[in-house]
């Protein structure tokens, strides 16, 4: 079972939705939905050291869901592009599923 991390910052209201989506996909893939390690990022310094480019950030086995190139670290809300083209504050479930299948 790979480590599943959800990094979040309190300035964005999307953490609960992202967590619920993540747990749903984990359960659908036969993994423990309660295994998610939630880590709060509090400062710009923590964001820098974590490589945290925005809230929420999901990593599975160290692989980031919907990675973005050349994005500066910082305390901000992350914008995801869903597979149907819409903007969203949480990743597309299929992007999460893709990473789970890649690392397991």
């Amino acid at each position, binding site marked *: 079972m790979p480590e599943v991390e959800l990094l979040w910052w309190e300035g964005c209201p999307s953490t609960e939705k992202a967590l619920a989506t993540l747990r749903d996909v984990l359960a659908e893939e036969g993994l423990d939905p309660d295994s998610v390690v939630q880590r709060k990022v509090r400062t710009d310094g923590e964001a820098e050291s974590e490589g945290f480019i925005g809230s929420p950030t999901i990593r599975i086995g160290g692989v980031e869901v919907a990675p973005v190139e050349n994005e500066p670290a910082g305390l901000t809300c*992350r*914008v995801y592009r869903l597979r149907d083209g819409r903007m969203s504050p949480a990743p597309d479930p299929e992007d999460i599923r893709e990473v789970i299948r890649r690392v397991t």
Partner: protein
Amino acid sequence: MKIGDVAPAFELPAAEGGTAATFSPEEDRTDAVPTAVVFTCNHCPYALAWHDRLLAVARDYEGRARVLLVNPNDAERYPRDSFDAMKERVEADGGWPAPYLRDESQEVARAYGAEKTPDVFLLETDGRLRYRGAPDADYEDPSQDAAWLRGALDAVLGGRDPQPAETHPVGCSVKWSQ
């Protein structure tokens, strides 16, 4: 600001064309159109999700109401919300049907009590606040089409009270300067 309060006047620079846009209760008595002041920004996913719906409102109500988009976020900590970045965004889209205004000092956002991006304040022609909150019930559902804001505009234009008059703004917190 509470429903029924008269909104403060302001003048802010617009991202497009180097002009300024003003809101003044006194002036608007002669303009006789309601004004939707929407605090929004470049970087927040909720603001981006609702953006097209808000622009559609500006287009659909042209001549009957006006929409002013105001970005109050601290650009030092959030460079994507700088005035230059705002200009680039409007230019990349070939212009917007509503002015995108920079509230660099954050005084307007503070005066209105803006909490989120987006945060909608619909003002009657005399400046009284008639609706405050989210554009509609679901940022994820484009078919909602800013229904709360449209309903409030239709009510005000028809001489009725908006129902609901107030909803919870949903989005990212305004990024105040530290």
